[in-house]
């Protein structure tokens, strides 16, 4: 218990430090004439001196406090928004039965919704488990410490379970209105499904990652073995772990569906108007579930304690080689300037290209989505465009901008600040000019595909809403980003301003887009706020 206790305690301390900042004082033994003297208490006033210096710890402490306050506000907003969304979206009356496509679903609306929420949690956690087991910096830090593997397994299992339960709690909050609308039992059954799903996701996820690792080095198929040789001894490992989260997800979803069906059988049996009691299939089905969960955990434990260091080493090696399939660096660099870029001259053209390439390479996924998203939208709207409610049209447009453009990440992320460009002998006006060209291009790139989609909508009002609202919103973000340049404090305030603008704008139509947009806006702020100051150079500590 000693080492696990230590790991758990320090994990919570890290969390507490993250939320509330460091606390306490330290006793440092002063050295006099090279000899240690009496221990000396260093109080907060010495740890955060006000008399200046290159780095002002007091300033850092203030910034940490501001960020803590911001985090608390955002979490509270998120906690408040979830039940509100549940109230708006759940039906006013509940029943144990829901008939859909001729099939009877015992458990009704709440169990169905809980099932879809559980699937979302499974999707998220299946990938995060892989990260926490092998890639997260905590895994790398602890890999060189003498920690018993049995203890490490339970520590990782506990962490993953806690993580999953926190997300599940958010889902439970969303379903809370079911309770308040008078269907307490329906809510409890949904809760049972969510908790069961959390267990399934963690157990199956652990087993799948271990199975992938073991299969990778013990029973490597010929194809992977060949790939492994060609790619420098890492291809097989990379390939196995590429598939493992998807396999974990597929198995988890199958088991969650199975759990839902079992729960429906139990719900059916406890209905007052049903006679005959529990179906005979329920006990063996429950047995299968227990065996699946316990069996997965047992398998994972066995392989973790036997092979984890080897699996970690293989994964670590695979991670040493990074192939960015989305970028053909050299071909791109040599490509002659085209269109707008060709008309620019001198340093403006160079800076424009620098920003354009940085933006394009930062997220290959976004680049693909610019094409795939509108295409999917086009197909969907052609089929169901007439059935879309006005607020849905607005919400889709805004979500498009929020997710793809992620304005908050842009406001905070210093990656777009060309550090190299700033030290080149280029005037501010030229630098600004290059940026303005890029902004216009970006707005056009992100909103024009949406305009094409909007054309498929039935009315002019809907068409304009879908295109003009995001265009205005994104333009505002870009303008604010320019205003905020060079200031460390302004972006945070501007982030709030933009969030407020989105909320107010979407609220003009109805509560629907408001509820759809605000959680995404909050999530974007949380995702984008993590770099309040420019990052350090190469020597800066990387940590988990």
């Amino acid at each position: 218990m000693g080492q696990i206790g230590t790991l758990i305690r320090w994990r919570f301390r890290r969390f507490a430090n993250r939320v509330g900042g460091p606390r306490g004082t330290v006793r440092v033994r002063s050295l006099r004439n090279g000899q240690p003297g009496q221990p000396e208490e260093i109080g907060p006033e010495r740890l955060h001196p006000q008399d200046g210096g290159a780095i002002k710890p007091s300033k850092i402490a203030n910034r940490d406090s501001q960020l803590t306050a911001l985090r608390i506000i955002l979490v509270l907003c998120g906690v408040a928004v979830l039940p509100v969304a549940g109230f708006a979206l759940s039906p006013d009356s509940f029943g144990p039965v829901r008939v859909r496509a001729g099939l009877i679903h015992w458990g009704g609306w709440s169990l169905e919704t809980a099932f879809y929420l559980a699937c979302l949690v499974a999707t998220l956690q299946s990938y995060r488990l892989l990260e926490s087991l092998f890639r997260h910096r905590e895994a790398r830090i602890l890999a060189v410490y003498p920690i018993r593997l049995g203890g490490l397994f339970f520590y990782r299992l506990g962490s993953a379970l806690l993580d999953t339960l926190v997300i599940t709690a958010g889902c439970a909050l969303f379903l809370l209105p079911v309770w308040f609308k008078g269907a307490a039992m329906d809510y409890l059954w949904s809760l049972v499904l969510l908790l069961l799903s959390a267990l399934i996701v963690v157990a199956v996820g652990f087993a799948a990652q271990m199975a992938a690792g073991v299969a990778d080095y013990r029973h490597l198929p010929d194809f992977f073995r060949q790939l492994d040789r060609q790619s420098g001894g890492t291809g097989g490992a990379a390939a196995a772990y590429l598939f493992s989260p998807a396999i974990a997800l597929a198995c988890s979803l199958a088991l969650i569906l199975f759990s839902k069906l079992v729960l429906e059988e139990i719900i059916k049996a406890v209905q007052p108007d049903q006679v005959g009691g529990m179906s005979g299939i329920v006990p063996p089905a429950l047995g299968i579930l227990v065996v699946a969960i316990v069996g997965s955990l047992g398998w994972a434990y066995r392989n973790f304690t036997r092979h984890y260091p080897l699996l970690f080493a293989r994964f670590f090696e695979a991670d040493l080689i990074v192939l960015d399939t989305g970028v053909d660096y050299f071909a791109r660099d040599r490509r002659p300037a085209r269109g707008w870029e060709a008309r620019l001259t001198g340093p403006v053209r160079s800076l424009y290209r620098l920003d354009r390439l940085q933006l394009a390479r930062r997220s290959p996924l976004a680049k693909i989505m610019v094409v795939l998203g509108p295409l999917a939208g086009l197909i969907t709207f052609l089929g169901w465009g007439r059935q879309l409610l006005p607020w849905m049209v607005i919400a889709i447009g805004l979500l498009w901008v929020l997710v793809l453009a992620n304005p908050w990440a842009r406001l905070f992320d210093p990656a777009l600040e060309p550090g190299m460009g700033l030290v080149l002998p280029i005037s501010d006006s030229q630098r600004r000019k290059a940026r303005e060209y890029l902004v216009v291009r970006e707005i056009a790139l992100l909103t024009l595909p949406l305009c094409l989609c909007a054309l498929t909508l039935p009315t002019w009002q809907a068409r304009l809403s879908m295109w003009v609202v995001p265009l205005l919103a994104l333009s505002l973000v870009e303008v604010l980003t320019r205003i905020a340049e060079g200031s460390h404090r302004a972006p945070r305030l501007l982030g709030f301003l933009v969030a407020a603008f989105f909320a107010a704008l979407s609220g003009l139509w109805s509560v629907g887009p408001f509820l759809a947009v605000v959680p995404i806006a909050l999530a974007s702020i949380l995702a984008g706020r993590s770099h309040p100051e420019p990052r350090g150079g190469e020597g800066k500590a990387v940590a988990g």
Partner: protein
Amino acid sequence: MSGQGLLEVKEIVKRYGPLTAVDGISLRLSPGELVAFIGPNGAGKTTTYRCIVGLQRPDAGQVLVSGLDMQTDRVEALRAIGYVGQDVQLFQYLTGEETLRMVGEIYQIEPQQLEDRISRLLELLELGSAANRLVRHYSGGMARKLALCTALVREPPVLLLDESFAGLDPESTVAIRGELDRLRQNGSTILLSSHVLELLERWVTRVVILAKGRIVQDLGRSELNELLSGRFDSLTSLYLYHTRQTG
């Protein structure tokens, strides 16, 4: 160099596809040795370190720490090793002092002893005033010093330092050098890689030169002194001679 060494690396090989990064390296380090492990970029130093601590698995060969096989007795073997890698890995949301306390607890160092060591090291490396600050607010040099402290606080029998002096100020370099000398006198073995050859020239007890994954020269202090007083005027010229020989 007879008998069992504290650290024994036997014929380890590590390949990346067609590239052999480590090609049959063997080393035996005895208690009290301070060994410079030098070589050009890409010679295989970091891969060797990683194979020793188990971050990477060698394709062939064996690593023994105090007679314990790193593959079969990993936990016990790691207990005897302190490793500071090239890339500093620290928990961002712990303070400097908390980081050292956590490491001490994992290694189950007696509390009073741990307090003394933490306080002495923080003061020695001038981290005292930053001890209660989160690691994420440390500069690159401070983070490196703290990483060194995480290894030194355990006073391990085997200390592996991969480019650990890079980016440190002269005061800290002198302080760490003193601390390493103290550990060595207490019987610890230190394997140290650095490109600051002037620092190593008069300090280390042995020099191992690596090129293209192989050891091209392994010299004890007396042999090194002999070469430096005759054919070569400095460790740099000796190093350049051997690395150029291997092309």
